[in-house]
């Protein structure tokens, strides 16, 4: 998952901490900033004659309102539809082929929008030039917009038959009920259908600014030459007002005032096997960075296959599937950090799922978390030692390809900050038991969860009454999305 990749690469920094190249602790990574605020990261790796060029903006669903939900995704699509240099999508695509681009794409996420491709290293400057036109001078032709609105609508409608998407949307709607549109990348089809060129221009002038972007170049390159190229093609890009000067208020913590129970009749699960999750609001990394380090160390500790946590949950909750599929994690976000616990279990009519999730699973997990927070011996010194060893091992693994580092750097730059990324491992190594305890007390023991069960529809039918009597709301494609319930 993105999170683990990001963590792995950040960990790589520690063991390389003695090597500094232009202010970064990563060997081969050079950092620059243009006068207009554009950050440039150049990673030297001469293994193959290729260059990855990626540009990332701090925006996405995080910056949405009910009236703009889905437009950042639409905007991302429209950037491929033509600009002042390549006037149509066909010209745009043809130019990439002419550059020898093997892999390209754009992606919209909750907290960033990113575009990338890989070119032969001899065409690095042409690659930088190519993206500069797209970022700075998109055309937003009305006829093209109309076509793309149809494409994006197809995509949104496709989500309605994607069980993971339905489930994820329902969880976000419950846990982030005040501002659910800030978690909804796909957005509302009606909003997408009603988008105009003016709304896209508004996004451009607010967020597609050099001082809200970072350029990542990695591969068979000379950093100083890349810096010169970047100045050539991006140096005159005009900065604008900082879009983050007055950030929106954070999602409330706890995310819910009392426990919320959801059940999702889910055809992606076979009969006889169900999934239980308990999710809390976690720390937002920019507002509260300190507990995020403790959270990540904790995440490593409870992964231990035969550790106290997995063993206690497996032994304490009846009918669980396997220790392998018991876990917990913290998901780092700028606006919507989350802490989750999950397990798979067998369906058993004598052990109703509603109660197993609502009581057994929640109680055992909470009991174990309380012990972690109060018992100094819950995690041994040896277990902390293994985490430190894993930090070093993850470093070796993450340096296998340059793409991993660029993707990771892009993620952290968007979600937290470069400084957070560069100081990540030293801060992780400073985490002590008391830090873990403080994180758990605040974000689990004093928090209120959303508890959800995913279960095959046939199994759900057999326990439908028990779910209803226990206060569970039933999730479906009609109820999972905030924009379909008419409340917003």
């Amino acid at each position, binding site marked *: *998952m993105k*999170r683990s990749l990001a963590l792995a690469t950040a960990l790589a920094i520690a063991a390389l901490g003695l090597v500094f190249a232009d202010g970064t602790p990563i060997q081969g990574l050079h950092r620059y900033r243009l006068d207009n605020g554009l950050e440039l990261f150049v990673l030297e790796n001469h293994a193959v004659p*290729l260059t990855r060029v990626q540009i990332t903006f701090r925006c996405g669903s995080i910056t949405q309102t009910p009236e703009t939900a889905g437009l950042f*995704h639409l905007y991302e*699509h429209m950037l*491929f539809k033509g600009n002042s240099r390549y006037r*149509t*999508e*066909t010209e745009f*695509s*043809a130019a990439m*082929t*002419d550059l*020898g681009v*093997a*892999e390209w*794409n*754009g*992606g919209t*996420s909750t907290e960033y929008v990113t575009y990338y491709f*890989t070119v032969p290293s001899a065409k690095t400057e042409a690659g930088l030039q190519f993206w500069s036109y797209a970022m700075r001078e998109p055309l937003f032709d009305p006829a093209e917009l109309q*076509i*793309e609105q149809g*494409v994006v609508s*197809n*995509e949104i*409608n*496709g989500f309605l*038959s*994607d*069980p*993971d*998407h339905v489930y*994820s949307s329902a969880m976000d709607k419950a846990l982030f009920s005040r501002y659910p549109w800030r978690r909804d*990348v*796909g957005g509302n089809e009606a909003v997408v259908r009603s988008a105009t060129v003016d709304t896209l221009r508004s996004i451009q002038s607010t967020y597609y600014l050099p001082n809200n972007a970072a350029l990542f170049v990695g591969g068979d390159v000379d950093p100083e030459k890349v810096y010169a190229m970047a100045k050539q093609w991006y140096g005159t890009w005009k900065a604008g007002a900082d879009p983050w000067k007055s950030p929106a208020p954070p999602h409330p913590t706890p995310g819910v005032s009392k426990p919320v129970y959801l059940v999702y009749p889910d*055809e*992606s699960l*076979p009969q006889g*096997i169900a999934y239980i*999750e308990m999710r809390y609001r976690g720390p937002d990394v920019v507002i509260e960075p300190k507990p995020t380090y403790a959270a990540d160390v904790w995440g490593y500790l409870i*992964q*231990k*296959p*035969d550790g106290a946590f997995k063993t206690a949950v497996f032994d304490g909750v009846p009918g669980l599937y*396997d220790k*392998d599929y018991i876990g917990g*994690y913290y*998901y780092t976000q700028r606006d919507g950090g989350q802490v989750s616990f*999950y397990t*798979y279990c067998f369906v058993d009519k004598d052990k109703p799922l509603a109660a197993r999730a609502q009581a057994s699973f929640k109680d055992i997990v909470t009991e174990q978390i309380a012990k972690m927070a109060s018992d100094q011996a819950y995690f041994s010194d040896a277990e902390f030692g*293994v985490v430190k060893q*894993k930090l070093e*091992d993850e470093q*070796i*693994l993450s340096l*296998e*390809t340059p793409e991993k580092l660029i993707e990771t750097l892009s993620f952290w730059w968007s979600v937290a900050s470069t400084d957070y990324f560069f100081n990540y491992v030293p801060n992780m190594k400073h985490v002590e038991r008391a830090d873990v305890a403080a994180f758990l007390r605040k974000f689990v023991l004093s928090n209120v969860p959303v508890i959800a069960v*995913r279960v*095959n529809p046939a199994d759900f039918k057999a326990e439908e009454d028990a779910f209803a009597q226990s206060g569970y709301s039933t999730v479906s494609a009609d109820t999972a999305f905030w924009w379909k319930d008419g409340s917003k």
Partner: protein
Amino acid sequence: MALAACALAFSCVSSPAAPTVAEPAVEPTDATAGASEAVWKLPGSPVSQWKLPSTPGAYMQANLPSIETRVLANGATLIVKKNPANRIFSMKVAFRGGSALVPPEKAGLEAMTLALIARGSTTYPYAELQRLQYEKSSSIGSTASSYDWSSLDLNTIDKYWDELFKVFADCALNPAFDPAQFALVQNDFKVSIQKSMADPYNYAVTKLHDRMFAGHPYAAEFGGTASSISSITLDDIKSYYARTIGADRMVVVAVGNFDADRLAASLNATIGAIPAKGVVIPPVGRYTPKAELYLEKFDKSKGVAYVRGDYPIADIKSPDFPSLQLAYSMLDELLFSIVRTDHGACYSVWSRAFGFLNPYGSLVVYKTDKPSAAKGWVDESIALLASGKTLNIKGGDDKYAPIASTIDAYKAKYVNAFYGNQETNAQTATQLASSYIYFGDHTEYLRFIDKINAISPEDIVAAVNAYVVNAPITWIVVADQATLAGVDKTRFAAFTGTVQQ
């Protein structure tokens, strides 16, 4: 499984990579709308004229010195590619045979057997494996992602190699076949299949292949089906292991900073001692193509259809196969431009060549609200390429340009993609194993760049006309009933493009 189920981040892309090949199948339901039986034959001899250069290109020359082979004590081949650039050690113990060795009613037997081998030995139970994998950031597992071969895999870091290899080898030699682990593996497979079948695209592929491969060895879907997985017993697995996990279908590939002699010695004392079992791999012939259309209802896919058409193509060893691979790279851009850009008819659209022993090509329109019209635009794109045209990538008023003016750029693009598939040691190990299994020569993949560079525009045109135009395509459309009701079946009955000679 758990990670997929609890994934939080949703990243939405403009042009997604093609989803992976479908997971296993479930029982078929009603088919609809048989179209005409096409009178069509694969070319009797290659239509491509390109020849490899007499001297290998720079890529092959640069890489050959890093590759060594040894013959293990049991006669199996060991291929070692030395890579001192990183500290990752990757090993594949690959087995030829795949679906051809397994009857459809036991589909998934090989995949389950290998998965269970990776669940511990008599000396090292699964809990011990789990501990090692966690503490050493390593993995012991299996891969069954092809109809024709599968593998046991070890990925670790240099400093842990000796410790992990000892455990890995013991699992291969003395698998525990623990009943409790068997039950968990069986459930894992069921969960995976069910999850796959809840995805309308994977559902489409599975239903399509149910029809296409009926009576063919590929009817045994390599990942199994819900019913076949349920029918497999622990005794089946023990028996399959005893009968088929042998030297006669084994090749071992290692990529990392290995010493080949030292590695061979380690293997000879362990995995290299696994004897031949006298396994006879049945020949995998061609499936019998049928130009038909199937409509499959998927209630939850309201207003959005998934369209796929598969058809036989050139053998992977034929000069026509690389010609088709390059042609599909050109076709993808025509498809995207016409179906998606011009008409906004879908989220994505692509073509593929699957180089299995029974090779086939695919045309896919992914998430469309205009399935019938999209099929016509797919044919229009094919006809353009068959007429010698690609997108005009040099700019100008003409949207299309002769292949001769663009082929070098497409070659560069394809070669760059090839580089991209060599980035990790595990990826390189897969290339070596695949080359050995399909070509009998582990270095065949090193010729890829030379092959692509030798292809002419005429080869592209000839290959597209011979294999794609008027091909006997078996189509499937998956959507809700209302969308299916609007499908114009006549559009799928035949190729509707106009090829200009």
